[in-house]
């Protein structure tokens, strides 16, 4: 047993993880606890943040917003134990006008550079996720994972020393809004399966990471406040204004609410939900463990 645990620890220690996110908050809220757990185990995690979040603020110019969120995003990543953050710098809300191939190839570059064992990407198939940058990023990242394996994609990479790479495991994450998110759509051989991961041990780090995103959190609080005001309501939490502590409390409620929602009907208290393409994914049944079982 001890030898097995030692072996598992060594494996995890060497694990390379690549996280792709459309914006600063999505991966933190949907996968932060799981990533913190992997980082604690020694995994080397790289984050690719596609947009600069320049729209998500109140009374700040886009340039100032982008600068602040960049710094806050790095602070959040640090809380989770992420080793490196790469900012691609696309303008937020505008990925619908970006060439999907261009975006795919930029993500593919980092797949070949960091050679991850595991990738975390936004689930582009999750329905009713209103931030459509997440859909476009998910589509590009999913494709990047595939094209990174083929030498005929971006042959110039080979000249620069970047060789094709196969990512063994893939997690799709998204906010739990899709009403059918827990229904398997097909067999694990062809379709990533819904899984739930326990995050009780890393919840506090996830919360701190989410709270580090102060500019985005202020914008979220202001939007809620405005909506309530427009409809003749108020949140007692905001009675002294949208103070730092009030916003931090709101974020805590959000992160706790998400963890409880994902843990619903499971054995966990706090959790995160994913769709997981594991070792059996796209492996013919006769070669996979599933056939032997």
């Amino acid at each position: 047993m001890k030898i097995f645990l030692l072996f598992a620890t060594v494996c995890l220690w060497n694990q390379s993880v690549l996280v792709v996110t459309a914006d600063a908050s999505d991966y933190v809220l949907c996968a932060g606890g799981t990533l913190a757990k992997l980082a604690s185990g020694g995994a080397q995690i790289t984050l690719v943040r596609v947009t600069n979040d320049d729209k998500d603020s109140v009374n700040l110019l886009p340039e100032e917003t982008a600068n602040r969120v960049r710094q806050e995003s790095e602070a959040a990543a640090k809380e989770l134990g992420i080793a490196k953050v790469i900012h691609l710098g696309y303008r937020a809300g505008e990925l619908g006008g970006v060439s999907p191939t261009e975006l795919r190839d930029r993500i593919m570059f980092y797949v070949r550079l960091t050679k991850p064992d595991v990738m975390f990407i936004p689930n582009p198939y999750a329905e009713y996720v209103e931030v459509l940058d997440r859909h476009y990023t998910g589509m590009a990242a999913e494709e990047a994972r595939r094209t990174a394996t083929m030498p005929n994609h971006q042959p110039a990479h080979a000249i620069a020393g970047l060789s094709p790479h196969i990512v063994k495991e893939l997690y799709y994450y998204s906010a739990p809004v899709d009403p059918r998110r827990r229904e398997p759509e097909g067999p694990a051989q062809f379709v990533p399966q819904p899984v739930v991961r326990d995050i009780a041990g890393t919840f506090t780090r996830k919360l701190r990471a989410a709270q580090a995103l102060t500019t985005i959190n202020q914008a979220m609080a202001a939007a809620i406040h405005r909506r309530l005001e427009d409809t003749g309501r108020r949140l007692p939490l905001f009675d002294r204004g949208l103070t730092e502590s009030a916003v931090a409390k709101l974020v805590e409620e959000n992160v706790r609410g998400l963890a409880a929602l994902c843990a619903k009907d499971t054995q966990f208290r706090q959790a995160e939900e994913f769709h997981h393409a594991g070792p059996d994914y796209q492996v013919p049944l006769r070669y996979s463990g599933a056939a032997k079982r």
Partner: protein
Amino acid sequence: MYHALGILALAAPLFSQPLGDIPPGKTFLIVQSHHDDHTWQWGFSGFAARLVDAGWRGYFVRTTNDEKDGGAGWGKNDQTNLRESREAIRALGLTDVISLNWRNDHMESVPVKEVRAQFILLLRKLRPDVVMTWDPWGHYDRNPDHRMVSRAMGEALWLAGQWNVHPEHRDLGLVPFRPGRVYYTFRSDYGKGHGYNVAIEFNDAQMRRKADAYWAHKNVFNTPDEAKRIREALAVRNLAIPELAGLSDEQAIERIRRWEIEFASRETARNLGVSFAEKFWMVNEFDGLPGLKDYLQKKAVKR
């Protein structure tokens, strides 16, 4: 037998939706691709008529110019369909048709940002409490205008509330805005993408106005040949529809069109204990914040 009953019992909840209420508010905005989208069997006309009766102000956005819809040629179709669209909204009691006039069936080649920008401006200017539009998560829609409007509107609903999106709007005195409720519709016979979580009831008088609005689009629905073909096909089998006896083909097609839309509304209402209904996927004000939804519902109080 027991298996069949079991399947029926399991299936029942899937096909029954709660009857929705009229949300708080006073303005609604219907954004669709074509002149008649709001009036057909997957439209919003019954709901719109009910909101108007409850004192709401409604606007209908026709995103394309409908130049391909009808047999009169591009220019004439555009003008006729717009005129009939205005007649339809008058029947329902809406305030105005806003025609954006993008080229019909060519919307896939338009950048989504250009269409979205117009929607964001309308959202901020009209500040609708309720928006009704195509479901961006519907599957298998072959119509490029439906696909583009659903995507552009999906982006507009997300971005209209953000401060740094189209900051030039501030010079018009327009501020970021998010509608409280969005009702999505889609072809219910196209794949699994679009589902329903709410049904909206409407009454006999509202049903009649819905039928009036549907029939207002005569450029596409006034097809006497179709009535003739139906009667001939029935006659071959020694069948006839008594209600159509003595009517000309022109009169018969109107009767058939009205039955068509009434039948769809009755079918939707079946098992709901009401006469007429429409079904939608409704997204409520804080559904996009699943971690906070319950908290806000519990903690928000009246001012």
